[in-house]
């Protein structure tokens, strides 16, 4: 029950409360702006948080991530453009509702459902994280490496359209992380005689390059393909008000979505988009009015929105207990922990338990903050976004990327790394490689290597240690099974597509 004193401590700190509310507003605006993502905003703001106390920095970025997930629904409902991949499922029913003059109603359903899902996810995290940490403390290097291996394979193969490109992205992330001095023997790897490279590639410039500069490059290219101005759908008459009778049928869908999202959130790499679509599909299957889904059903907004946000809390569980980030936002937060000298993993709950629970408390207050702002001001936020001129916004982001990457360590080499990473990020976007798998693997690689080599030393060089220990073997098999399932799913899709063409 450590959460209650932590909550009290956060509530009585006005500066922290202000940061939470500010982060909720910033996240919502970023999430709702098409083309901008919470990951990009967090990467850009990361250097600024160097100068903040650890809890302040973590809470600020964590709440931006949460609020950004919710903010995506604003653009999905009002502009028919999902602000994030996860809100694409919300768009299916949200936009028809907006077209019918019920934009305000849809926004309120999205807000309430997001708050319900997110709070459910956080409560499950608070209840279960200590238990997972206790188990994690008993794992040895072979088991931990097997978990890393499973994470690499699942992240590489499950996200994105191509298994080979996903796995290749993950491997490239590992190779980039190998640049520099070997932490065990201090041998140089991939430095090619460069002193700068011997210090390795920094997480901050890499993140800023891939997420921020890469996005600016992509926007530059896609600017020509833009089809014109985005139209906002105004609410008419009673389209803004939401009664309890209207929300009542949505509640079971929101609660189910919360459990689906929380369950998926614990598994690294699956993410909120998958949770939102599974919840939407499951909701439609169980709905009393499935014929209305897709044409403007309020339940069709509640189900994906709740699941999408419920992912946020539980995705912190593998990060905090094992040091394995389940999402790109998790990978960036891991960087913040390391920058502030906090070792993430099972021992975190022994050394910095108070900080962790305070962070959870900040997350919960952040949910309340974005809930209030969204319920009463989502349409105002939408109007504000329509007024942001993208032809000014992206040049400013371009300039910020350079100064932010320099500020991280005051290193010009980091600025060069950021520029090259920006080019790499653009290439990966253009050729459908998997940026999330690349970044998460980059972050995981060092830990995976350490546990792999420790395991080899334990067994005197034999790789059989991973097969002899049942938990390790289980996780290795999990990776193989994940690939097998994905291949099977893709083959099924291909057969269906061929069948469909044949029928035509």
């Amino acid at each position, binding site marked *: 029950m450590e959460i209650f004193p932590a909550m009290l401590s956060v509530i009585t700190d006005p500066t922290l409360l202000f940061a939470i509310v500010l982060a909720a507003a910033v996240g919502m605006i970023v999430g709702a702006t098409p083309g901008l993502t919470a990951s990009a905003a967090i990467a850009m703001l990361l250097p*600024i948080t160097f*100068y903040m106390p650890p809890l302040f920095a973590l809470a600020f970025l964590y709440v931006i991530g949460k609020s950004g997930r919710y903010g995506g629904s604003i653009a999905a409902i009002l502009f028919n453009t999902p602000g994030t991949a996860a809100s694409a499922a919300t768009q299916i029913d949200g936009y028809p509702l907006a077209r019918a003059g019920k934009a305000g109603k849809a926004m309120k359903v999205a807000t309430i459902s997001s708050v319900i899902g997110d709070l459910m996810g956080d409560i499950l995290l608070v209840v279960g994280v200590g238990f997972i940490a206790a188990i994690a403390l008993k794992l040895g290097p072979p088991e931990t490496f097997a978990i890393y291996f499973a994470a690499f394979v699942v992240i590489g193969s499950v996200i994105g359209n191509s298994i*080979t*490109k996903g*796995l*290749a992205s993950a*491997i*490239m992330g*590992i*190779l980039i992380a*190998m640049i520099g001095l*070997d932490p*065990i*023997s201090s*041998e*140089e*790897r*991939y430095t*090619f005689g460069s002193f700068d490279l011997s210090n390795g590639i920094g997480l901050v410039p890499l993140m800023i390059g891939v997420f921020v*500069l890469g996005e*600016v*490059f992509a926007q*530059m*290219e*896609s*600017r*020509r*393909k833009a089809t014109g101005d985005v139209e906002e759908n105004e609410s008419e008459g009673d389209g803004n008000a939401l009664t309890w009778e209207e929300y009542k049928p949505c509640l079971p869908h929101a609660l189910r979505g919360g459990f689906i999202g929380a369950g998926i959130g614990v598994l690294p790499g699956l993410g909120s988009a998958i949770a939102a679509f599974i919840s939407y599909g499951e909701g439609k299957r169980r709905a009393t009015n499935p014929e209305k889904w897709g044409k403007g059903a309020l339940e069709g907004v509640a189900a994906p929105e709740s699941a999408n946000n419920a992912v946020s809390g539980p995705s912190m569980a593998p990060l905090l207990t094992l040091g394995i980030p389940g999402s790109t936002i998790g990978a960036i937060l891991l960087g913040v922990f390391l920058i502030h000298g906090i070792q993430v993993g099972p021992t975190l709950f022994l050394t910095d338990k108070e900080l962790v629970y305070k962070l959870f408390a900040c997350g919960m207050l952040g949910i309340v903050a974005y809930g209030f702002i969204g319920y009463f001001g989502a349409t105002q936020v939408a109007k504000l976004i329509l007024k942001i001129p*993208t*032809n*000014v916004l*992206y*040049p*400013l982001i*371009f*300039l*910020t990327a*350079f*100064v*932010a990457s*320099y*500020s991280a360590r*005051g290193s*010009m080499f980091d*600025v*060069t790394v*950021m*520029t090259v990473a*920006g*080019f790499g990020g*653009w290439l990966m976007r253009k*050729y459908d490689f998997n940026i999330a798998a690349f970044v998460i693997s980059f972050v995981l*690689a060092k830990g*995976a*290597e350490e546990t*792999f*080599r420790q395991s*080899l*030393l334990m067994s005197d*060089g034999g790789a059989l240690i991973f097969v002899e220990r049942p938990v390790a073997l289980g996780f290795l098999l999990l990776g193989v099974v994940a690939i097998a399932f994905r291949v099977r799913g893709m083959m099924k899709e291909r057969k269906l597509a061929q069948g469909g063409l044949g029928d035509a």
Partner: protein
Amino acid sequence: MRAYAEGLVLIVISLVALWGAWQVPGATPGDTWAGIVPFSASLALLLLSGVMILGASQQTATGEDKTDHAATFEFIGLFLIALIYQQSFRWFGYLLPTAIVAPIVLYMFGVRSWIGLALSVVICPLVFHVIFFELLGVFPPFGEVFDLLDWIKG
């Protein structure tokens, strides 16, 4: 064709990575080889590249990809500006390159207001300088050839 090219590029990357891993000196007795993970990862990447090439050979041609050359040229222009901009920090510090690059990038993104572009020459470097180098206290990059900040401060 595109799938072949992607596979070939990955093969080149994996071969360079393999060669790089091979350069890592051998392990001392009782230790593990520092190149074992890079070597294994490069090998796995080489294998995946092979799979990609195989997959490409089984694909049927679906017509040529339509590429917007003007958009690609605009991107290349912006990337070149990015490269020159980051290098010019070393030569001219932060203020001067930012004052020059800000209106160029704004123009590339479609800003055509001459007053706006002229204002960006002063406002962009000033605002970023105040936020990062004054408020956050980061030490600004020093220009080896000429530094506007140094000149302003006398």
